């Protein structure tokens, strides 16, 4: 009897715990994806966005591209950001921007992480 009650309590406690973790999980995951994205954006051998774009938190940015700021209001649809990073030459054949997805400079997962980061700017 007391065992059953304890089990029940344990179950409820477990559920509560699981729920609270679950509730916390998605922002935490997004935060870590954004942090990964920031690393990629600043890493010379990967995204290297900083070579051409000024980005908050990045030192010695280049000037070839526009400053990456207010991204969420400029591009409310994240698919548009993904498309730009994947292959901007589709939209603008004369762009200087490398086709990160088409030429496999970044994987789809990495592009998604960079987009997560851009949306925090």
């Amino acid at each position, binding site marked *: 009897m007391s065992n059953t009650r304890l089990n029940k309590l344990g179950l409820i406690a477990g559920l509560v715990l699981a729920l609270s973790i679950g509730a916390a999980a998605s922002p935490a995951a997004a935060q870590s994806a954004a942090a990964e994205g920031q690393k990629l954006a600043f890493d010379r051998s990967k995204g290297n966005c900083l070579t051409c774009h000024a980005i908050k938190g990045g030192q010695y*940015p*280049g000037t070839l591209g526009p400053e990456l700021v207010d991204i969420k209001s400029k591009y409310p649809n994240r698919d548009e950001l993904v498309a730009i990073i994947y292959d901007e030459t589709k939209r603008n054949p004369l762009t200087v921007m490398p086709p990160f997805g088409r030429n496999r400079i970044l994987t789809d997962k990495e592009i998604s992480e960079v987009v997560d980061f851009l949306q925090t700017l």
Partner: protein
Amino acid sequence: MKLRNAIQFTAAAFTLTLLALAAPPAISADKVDPVADEKAFKKFFYDKFPKLKPEDFVNGPYSMDADLYKQWQDKEQFPPYEFSLELGKEMFSKPFKNGKTYGDCFPNQGIGIRQDYPYFDEKEGKVITLELALNRCREANGEPAFSYVRDEMAALTAYMAFTSRGKPFNIKVPNDPRALAAYENGKEYFYTRRGQLNFSCATCHVQSPGERVRTEVLAPALGIVNAMPIYRSEWNGMGTTSRRFTTCNSQIRGVPLTPQDDEYRNVEYYLSYVSNGLPISGPGARP
């Protein structure tokens, strides 16, 4: 305004490249117009940088930025290429084992002739660059060729450029279908995107001169070869034209050609021709 010019120019270049790609490989000579190219190329840069004088372009990024210009003036007090120049002078005057010298291979004993290279050799049907001519001179005199990307070649070309400073580039494209084809091939190479980063030479040096990649200022294509060879702080040493071309190709994550491959010779030919009239400024120093 600047941007619109860049877009118009690159759009034109892009269209030309597309046309060149769409056309069969044999290029009909009557369509190639180096004189018109040179005029349009210079106009593009003069319009983009209205404050610069034509001869300023041979100083690369130093002309684009006041702070850099100051740094350059300071640097020229004790030029970092001086050791290379000294070495080149010494090598140039020292006879080969057979008693002959480099001077014997060149017009005017090799002094003050940098501005005439590359030239189109009608016997061979190909472009001859100064670096190539120097190695051919060595081989003709029983000496092994030097690496095209290392210090000895840089020293020799530094000395030959130095004796030619101030002389205007004087590149000729003879009315020979092979010369016109070589020129056109060089131009096509210059505007064609390649490598994992999908850059052409023009992406950086026509579309974006004066802009910064991280801390580095991109040099304008106009006058860029006038300063060769260059001491680069980034390299901690001297670099030949061959070294510049191969490292550019590596930086865009492409596969460099062999130094002095026909296409590199042709692109140097194109690039030198469109800088005709601008003074030789080599050896140069760059950040």
